[in-house]
């Protein structure tokens, strides 16, 4: 069985695109091969900064020939039908066969598709793959009309079997497939020919290219940790950075350096961010002090001086960067120690949104709202005010100007420098949180109040000026803000009417519309946690649905009930009762809400249900008052047996009008008792 080797060599592919590109190449080529009737045993895809590589093993040498018969029009059909058939089959009339069919004759087309050699199929498939490759961004170069992520330099395409290696005959816009490639840009020694994947991989290694990104990652990580270990240090793990760096080198050479003493006073996050963002350095920590004191950079070459020049250069760039950072930090400290007044003043000049005023105006709103929310979360209004005043001051700091991702965190450092309370400092750090469905939610009362006020001001503000998210457009990340509000309320068990909280936000927002948006986000959030949407709907239909903590408690209890057999059977019984009742109400034009009377109960089952309903009501009423949904639902589940027995024994629509009315009133009682817990009618079976 032949083996297929493809290499697409180009100028440097962006690191972030490499893994997906290798995967796409695999998918597109193997799909194409299979669609053309070839089979294969296994496939591997690889990427380096300059190449995408595919190795297919156990490929069939040719596709099987296919014979297809297609039935056409009858011999006496209109000429147009025959013409259509000829067009669709691509045959001429004398190529068709006439066969007897019932009492007439029918045209048949017999189409023979001969098997194709693997080489021909591969050429077609690869040509299509290259021309239509799904790069996130592609380009033209020189005079070509071909697009690739960066100029495509050469194509290696080999079919290897016992007889040897065959170059697949393929020419894409003047790039002719061959059996050669080149190694490392600086350490390789020109082009070389290969005869198989094994040979290719071995020769690449000799030409200083590690083909497999996972291998490069492992090599980098091992090299980095060894270097750090030898110096009594440890590398700060960063998987994203590792993957990125592995996409920047074909032959990784980790080198470790020290951060100059002068810079060690900078907050570790500043060191780490600067090194990662600007230079793709790993941070190296002193395990004794916990401080970041060194770095590992990964070069792409082995040099005659064992990396000394490279390390020196990198160190120099780092020093320049960190000098900037220290300069910013020191300037910031001066402002911070003076109480951050300059920044707060400066925020008056920063527009938050041209219809929603400046950042300073926004802060004033957050302060006011935060004070209102303070009692709900158990915080002191004055503390919340103090925290909200300074939480965004760091937006004017020079460090945050340079590294926006450090907003909040720097606020914490500066609040401390300003001699503020630790709760205020933490609120500055945490008030942007949570930023997604899984990250940590603030739990300190002051932080919770400021975080809530921050997000509610955003939501009500943008609602008031009609800048709501639509479709996949959410430029102000309002969905994220809504999820933040939801998670803050739920995690901290913040009770109260969300509508009234929202109405204290930016004036002019349509609160009920915003509540619907929040409910929608809650549904998405709960669905993500495996809760059925109809269960959420059944609870949303209940009063008090703008108390999200209560709502979710109810949802969880109902989800629990519906997971039991009693629950699903009860639902059947409830729906049956509800349907009969609804039909009767529609027919008779009255509501059967007068209460059933035990004395008109004829059978034992009727009496039993009557009593069961009363018993359930005794339990459900107080339980609901205590918001003990589990108990209430448990009591409701007890109705399952009597309801089932009732429907088995009793015909509701009796000829006796009194009995019928009494029974309908009893069904109404079921509706009321169950309806007090959740709107079961909204549940799907």
């Amino acid at each position, binding site marked *: 069985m032949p083996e297929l080797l493809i290499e697409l060599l180009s100028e440097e592919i962006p690191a972030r695109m490499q893994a997906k590109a290798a995967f796409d190449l695999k998918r597109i080529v193997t799909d194409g091969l299979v669609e053309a009737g070839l089979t294969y045993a296994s496939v591997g895809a690889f990427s380096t900064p300059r190449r995408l590589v595919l190795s297919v093993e156990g490929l069939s040498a040719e596709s099987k020939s296919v014979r297809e018969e297609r039935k056409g029009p009858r011999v006496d059909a209109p000429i147009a039908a025959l013409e259509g058939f000829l067009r669709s089959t691509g045959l001429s009339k004398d190529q068709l066969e006439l066969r007897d069919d019932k009492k007439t004759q029918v045209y048949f087309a017999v189409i023979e598709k001969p098997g194709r050699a693997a080489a021909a199929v591969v050429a077609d498939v690869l040509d299509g793959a290259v021309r239509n490759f799904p790069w996130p961004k592609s380009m033209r170069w020189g005079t070509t009309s071909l697009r690739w992520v960066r*100029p495509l330099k050469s194509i290696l395409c080999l079919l290897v079997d016992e007889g040897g290696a065959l170059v697949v005959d393929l020419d894409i816009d003047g790039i002719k497939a061959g059996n050669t490639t080149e190694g490392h840009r600086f350490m390789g020694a020109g082009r070389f020919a290969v005869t198989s994947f094994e040979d290719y991989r071995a020769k690449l290694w000799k030409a200083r290219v590690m083909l497999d990104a996972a291998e490069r990652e492992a090599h980098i990580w091992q090299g980095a940790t060894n270097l750090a270990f030898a110096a009594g240090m440890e590398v700060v793990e960063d998987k994203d950075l590792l993957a990125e760096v592995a996409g920047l080198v074909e032959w990784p050479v980790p080198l470790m350096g020290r951060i100059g003493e002068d810079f060690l006073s900078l907050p570790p996050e500043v060191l780490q961010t600067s090194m990662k963002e600007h230079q793709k350095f790993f941070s190296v920590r002193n395990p004794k002090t916990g401080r970041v004191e060194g770095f590992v950079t990964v070069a792409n070459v082995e040099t005659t001086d064992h990396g000394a020049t*490279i390390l020196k*250069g990198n160190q120099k760039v780092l020093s320049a960067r960190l000098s900037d950072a220290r300069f910013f930090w020191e300037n910031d400290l001066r402002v911070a120690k003076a109480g951050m007044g300059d920044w707060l003043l400066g925020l008056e000049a920063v527009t938050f949104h041209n219809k929603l005023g400046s950042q300073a105006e926004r802060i004033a709103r957050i302060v006011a709202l935060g004070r209102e929310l303070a009692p709900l979360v158990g915080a002191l209004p004055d503390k919340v005010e103090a925290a909200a005043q300074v939480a965004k001051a760091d937006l004017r700091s020079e460090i945050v100007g340079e590294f926006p991702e450090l907003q909040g965190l720097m606020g914490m450092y500066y609040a401390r420098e300003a001699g503020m309370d630790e709760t205020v400092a933490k609120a500055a750090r945490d008030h942007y949180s949570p930023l997604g469905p899984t990250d940590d939610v603030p739990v300190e009362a002051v932080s919770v109040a400021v975080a809530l006020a921050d997000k509610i001001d955003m939501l009500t503000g943008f609602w008031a000026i009609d800048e709501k998210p639509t479709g996949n457009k959410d430029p102000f990340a309002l969905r994220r803000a809504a999820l933040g509000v939801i998670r803050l309320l739920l995690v901290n068990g913040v009770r109260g009417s969300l509508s009234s909280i929202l109405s204290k936000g930016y004036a002019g927002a349509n609160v009920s519309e915003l509540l619907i948006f929040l409910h929608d986000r809650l549904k998405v959030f709960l669905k993500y946690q495996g809760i059925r949407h109809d269960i959420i709907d059944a609870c949303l239909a209940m009063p008090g649905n703008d108390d999200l903590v209560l709502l979710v408690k109810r949802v969880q209890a109902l989800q629990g009930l519906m997971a039991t057999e009693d629950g699903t059977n009860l639902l059947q019984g409830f729906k049956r009762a509800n349907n009969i009742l609804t039909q009767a109400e529609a027919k008779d034009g009255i509501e059967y809400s007068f209460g059933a009377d035990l004395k008109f109960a004829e059978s034992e089952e009727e009496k039993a249900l009557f009593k069961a309903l009363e018993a359930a009501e005794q339990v459900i009423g107080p339980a609901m008052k205590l918001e003990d949904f589990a108990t209430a639902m448990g009591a409701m589940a007890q109705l399952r047996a009597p309801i089932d027995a009732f429907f088995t024994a009793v015909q509701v629509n009796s000829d006796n009008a009194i009995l019928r009315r009494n029974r309908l009133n009893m069904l109404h009682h079921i509706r009321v008792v169950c309806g007090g817990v959740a709107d079961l009618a909204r549940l799907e079976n």
Partner: protein
Amino acid sequence: MFGWGVGIDPIGAVAYGRGGFQEGLSMSESVVPPRSFQEIILRLQSYWGVRGCAVLQPYDMEVGAGTFHPATTLRALGSKSWAAAYVQPSRRPTDGRYGENPNRLQHYYQYQVLIKPSPPNLQELYLGSLRAIGIDMELHDIRFVEDDWESPTLGAWGLGWEVWCDGMEVSQFTYFQQVGGHDCRPVSGELTYGLERLAMYVLGVDHVMEMPFNDPASPIALKYGDIFRQTEQEYSRWNFDQADTDMLLQHFKDAEAECERILAAEVTDKVGRRIIMAHPAYDQCIKASHLFNLLDARGVISVTERQAYIGRVRDLAKKCADAFVTTEAGGGEAIGAGVGGVPV
């Protein structure tokens, strides 16, 4: 020690032929390290000149980057082949630091190369230029790191990299895809070297003002600071505090109006020659762009206005591009200067 008149011969063997642009230097060929800022510039001029680029002079207007030179912006348009290299003094008023910051200047130099169509060995040619200025590939780590270039004021974008040498960005390498809203066909390859930064690295200097401008062994050795420290101070003050903003705003409007007026003018002149004034119009666009930068440095443009101003400059750039591609140099219908005209 050597005195006046002793230096390097900038012209080596001719390194181009029918086959296209040739790299010339071999991988391992070691090069004598340069000793001054100007020597690095001279070596780049020599390197690209020898390889067949027209070595142009800087454009005689204030621009924010070498890309603004019409030899890049306009010549990247249309079907005609092109190869040019030049130094371009560039001004970024907001980057002024009164000559105090070791790495920031409001006036600095870029080295710019534009070749159309981009030759297949442009990366190798570029690496050859680094060797020529003394960067030894046996010792240094050169990397091409993704960086997509976009100029909102020129309505231009391209894909390419920033080039790192030992972790420092030393150049920008771009394949132009669009300029002035026009697709580039063929595609130009553009190289931009930040000369001060590159030279500081090659010369091992930590503060730009300390960098030898001419050979430190010259009879009158001049450092970068001897030439530019005072001007950095003067321009920083003018840019940030003194420039008359009402006047600048008026000039912006004037440049904008003149650009549009020139482009709207009758194609046929008073004696019947067909002359489209793409370049004079583009000068006005450059002016508007620089005036915008000055206004920005004076802090009189708000965040929301910013986008509007950028959009206005871009509109001009697009109109200039539209006009240029109808001229002879732009590969248009040969309706440029002189064709079918009346001899003077």
